[in-house]
Structure formats: structure tokens, C-alpha cells
């Protein structure tokens, strides 16, 4: 993997909120991370570790205080202007005056796709997330899990090379959540998109990822990276396999080691 040029390259990034104020917060300190094409990366850590901040820096929704973020060999800003990534938030953030179909078409409208192309892409994406028969429903007529699938369809509609997901399943119940994880892996394998996925659930990170990037708080920094080489396709049985538990332990250890280090420092 390391032979291909990275999709995302974060080097020496720091982020300070409220710079110059007495109550400024050092959200991120000296972050270095490369993400390679086709990878599924999780950013995991307790709240306050800056994982969402890092994701938003990569997406150019906020600017770093120091260091550089590159996406597809360009600045994050240029990558956003070039529409290189799709974004999925914890809330589905569907526009409730638009039908499901129209919601999926939203980015395509903004990007001035022709009508036929828009309709075709939306159709295709709704098929991908298995919601074709709900294309004419309104968001408030769907369950939380279905809404989140529409949000994923919308994010992938314009075929971005990178998918940024900020705790997308955080608001779902455990059962729906596990089903959505399977769905996401299926979609990931079908689209070959690179995914960066923020979560605070260790099993979720282990089940989904090819690498789990473990972060720790105050100030937010990388505590370690755990390679997750569990065989694919991953299925329900994966969650009950011994290697799965070993990886969970490994991630947990990584989080704890850092706590110990901070406590003794």
C-alpha cells in the first residue's frame, strides 16, 4: 500500500481553538498521518481527542493552526473546491423539503450535472443502499438507519475518491448500527472509495477498518496505529472470532497505555 501516493497526507498539523484567548484549547498537536487509496481508516478515541476536528481539517471545513493537510496531492482547500470528498455527519442532515431522490441529487444539482445524469445517478445510488422503493418518500417518513443510508448515497452520488464520516452511526441503536456497518463494508467494497471514519466505539473501529488510528485527548494527538488484518469479507461471524477480540484488546491497550503515560508524566 505504501507504494501508492497517499489520498490524504497530514503532516505536523496542530489546531488551536480561540487562538490568543486565555481559554484557548489545543485541540490537536503535531499530527502526522498518511491514508492510502482504498483504505478504510478509523479515527478512534475518547471525546475531546480531536478526532472530529482532524476529520474536519481534512475536509477543509476548518483550517489548521499549523502544518499542512493534503488531499490527492493538493491542498485540502483545493480538494474541497474540486469536490474530491463526500461527507456524512452523525445526523443524516437530509433536507426535509426534498424527497429522498431529490436529496441524493442535491450535490449533483450544486455541481450542475444534467438532469438525466442526476436522475440516473440518484437511481443507481439508491439501489446501492437498497432504498429504491423509498425514492419518493420524504426524510421524516424514514427510520434513522434509512435516513443515514440516504446520506451515504448522497455523499457517494458524485463519485468522490474520499468519504469522510463523522460518527455516522452514533445516533443509531446497536442492532441497526451493526447492520449499517455491514452495509457500509459492502458499499465500500463495491465503490473502492477511501474512507475515513470517526467513531468512539472500539468494536466498530475494529470491525470496519483496515487501520485504526488511536487518538488521545488534551492535547489531541496520535497514541498509535493498529493494523487490522482480519480477513475480508467480514461478516457476523467475524465479531465472534478470536482474532477480532485480540484486535479489540490491542486497540484498548493502546488507549490505556497512553492514559498511563499521561498520568505518570
Amino acid at each position: 500500500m505504501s507504494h501508492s501516493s497517499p489520498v490524504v497526507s497530514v503532516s505536523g498539523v496542530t489546531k488551536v481553538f480561540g487562538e490568543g484567548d486565555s481559554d484557548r484549547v489545543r485541540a490537536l498537536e503535531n499530527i502526522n498521518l498518511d491514508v492510502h487509496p482504498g483504505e478504510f481508516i478509523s479515527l478512534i478515541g475518547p471525546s475531546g481527542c480531536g478526532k472530529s476536528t482532524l476529520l474536519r481539517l481534512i475536509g477543509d471545513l476548518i483550517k489548521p493552526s499549523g502544518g499542512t493537510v493534503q488531499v490527492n496531492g493538493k491542498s485540502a482547500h483545493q480538494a474541497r473546491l474540486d469536490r474530491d470528498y463526500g461527507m456524512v455527519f452523525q445526523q443524516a442532515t437530509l433536507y426535509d423539503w426534498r424527497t429522498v431522490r431529490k436529496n441524493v441529487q442535491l450535490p449533483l444539482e450544486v455541481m450542475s450535472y444534467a438532469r438525466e445524469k442526476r436522475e440516473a445517478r440518484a437511481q443507481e445510488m439508491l439501489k446501492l443502499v437498497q432504498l429504491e422503493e423509498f425514492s419518493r418518500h420524504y426524510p421524516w417518513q424514514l427510520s434513522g438507519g434509512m435516513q443515514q443510508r440516504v446520506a451515504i448515497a448522497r455523499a457517494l452520488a458524485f463519485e468522490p475518491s474520499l468519504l469522510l464520516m463523522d460518527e455516522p452511526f452514533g445516533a443509531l441503536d446497536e442492532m441497526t448500527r451493526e447492520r449499517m456497518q455491514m452495509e457500509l463494508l459492502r458499499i465500500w467494497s463495491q465503490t473502492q472509495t477511501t474512507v475515513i471514519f470517526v467513531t468512539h466505539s472500539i468494536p466498530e473501529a475494529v470491525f470496519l477498518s483496515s487501520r485504526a488510528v488511536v487518538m488521545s485527548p488534551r492535547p489531541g494527538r496520535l497514541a498509535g496505529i493498529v493494523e487490522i488484518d482480519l480477513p475480508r469479507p467480514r461478516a457476523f461471524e467475524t465479531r465472534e472470532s478470536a482474532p477480532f477480540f485480540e484486535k479489540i484488546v490491542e486497540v484498548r491497550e493502546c488507549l490505556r497505555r497512553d492514559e498511563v503515560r499521561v498520568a505518570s508524566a
Partner: protein
Amino acid sequence: MVETPTLPIHEVASEIPPAPRGTPAWLRQIIAFAIIAVALVAFWEGYKALGAATGGMIPLTAARLPVRPDDKSMPHVFDILAALFKPVQRGSENTLLSFLLRSALFTWREALVGFAIGSLVGFALGVVFVHSGLLERGLMPFVVASQTVPLLAVAPMVVIWGSRLQWPAWLAVTIISAYLTFFPVTINTLRGLRSPDPTALELMRSYAASDWQVLWKLRVPAALPYIFTALKISATASVIGAIIGELPSGIADGLGRSLLTFSYYYVSGPEKLYAAIFGAALLGIVFVVIIAQVERMVVPAGRRIE
């Protein structure tokens, strides 16, 4: 990369609220309206009957009823209705009803233009304010002040300026109507344009959408329920503005002059003034109903503020 086989998804969409069976919504609306109308008539006539029985006193007390229940102060509802079908004045060929309908239609035309201008100005101000905090802070106090100045003071000034500029008389009326209309639209538009969540805006940012696209694809659709609420307030205000505007501008064909004339001749025919008041009220209702209908066509059911 080979991935997991597709799993069937057994999630059920929450039920779309079923349309109530039987009576359609518009009919239920009319029935409800009729019931209240009958109740009000019954109260009016009951009050008069009570006054007649007690000689204008509140029963078992020595206190007078707040409004005298005689036919001068409170004509019978039947007399008011009957007056509609009598000539508007002795020897006239027109009934009061056709006279009032014509006046109401005339006033409505002025109100409609005023409403259109006021709504557009109100909307435009809302859009400007949402994009410029500086302009909002600078202009908003004046916008608020404009509404605290009594309309009775503003209306003659507009009429005088209008005549100096040789405007047609109805144009001044329209401006006065617009003056009363734009404020609720500005306030509600601004509120509505600010209503999207931060993430809804970030989503647009992630698409590198232009301000123009954010406005028309996100802010304005999100603001529509707020704007329609404002339009309903403004519709009634535009009628009031037109009626008040007609008084100093000497327009003889509208409801304003009718109300004034009938109040002069109140003693000889109080039912005419009441009929004219109902005419004005009816105009407001019709206007609001039309806007509610447009809202039904424009805003999906799940988003209406009802």
C-alpha cells in the same frame, strides 16, 4: 476486494399519517367556521334579548351592561343581513352588497400591490441581513422604528409627497400598505434563513456551493414555513394599510371611504357600518385563505407550521 454478501434490510419506514377518512379537510374547516359563526350570532342576539329583559342591566345587579343592547348600538344580525340587499342609499339602483363588494375589490387591488411590494422588500431585506451583520446592525433599528411610528402620522405624509410627485392616488395607498407589510416578512425571513443547522450549511460547504446556491437550495426552502406565516400576517396588515391609506388620499371607491361615510350616518343606519366592517373582515379572511392555499402547494405537509 471481496465483500460481504448483501443482506436483506428489514427496516420499516414510519407510517405516513393517514388522511382522515370521511369529511375532507376544507369541509371540516367550513363546518368549524359555521359553528363558531352561529355561536357568535347566538351570543349577540342572546345579549340583546337579555338586555331587553332586564332593561339594560346585568342580571341581579345594579350594574349596566357594558354595551347598550338597543338596536342602535347593536342591530339585529338579521337587519344587518337584510341591509345588504337594500339599496345603498335612497333611490340608488345598487344594493349595499354590490356596493361593498365593489369597494372591497377596489381596496383589495391596492392592498394586493402593496402586499406584493412589501413582501418583496421584506424578503430582500431579510436576505441582505443574513449575509451582512453590519447592514443588519445598522439598518434593523430603523426598520423597527418605522413600525413604531403611528401609521396615522405616516399616511398623510406619503399622500402629500405622492401628490407633489404627481403620483396617481392609488400609488400612495399602495406604498402605505407596503409600509405596513414588509416588517413581519423581514423578521420572519431572517429567522427562517438562519434556521438551517450548522451541519446543513457545512454540507453545502463540502460541495463548494456558492452563496447563491446556499441561498436558493438551502436557506430559502428552509425559510418558507416562516415566510408563509409572515405573509398571512402581512395579508391582513396590507388590507388595513390600504383602508387607512384611502382616507387622507381622498379615494372614494374603496372600503376606507365606505367605512368613513357609514360611520357619519351611523345614527340613521347602524347596520350599514356593521356590514362594511364585515366586508373588511371578509376581505382579510379571503386573502389569508388564498395564501394558505399557495402554502399547501409550495411547502410539503411535514414542514408546515400549523
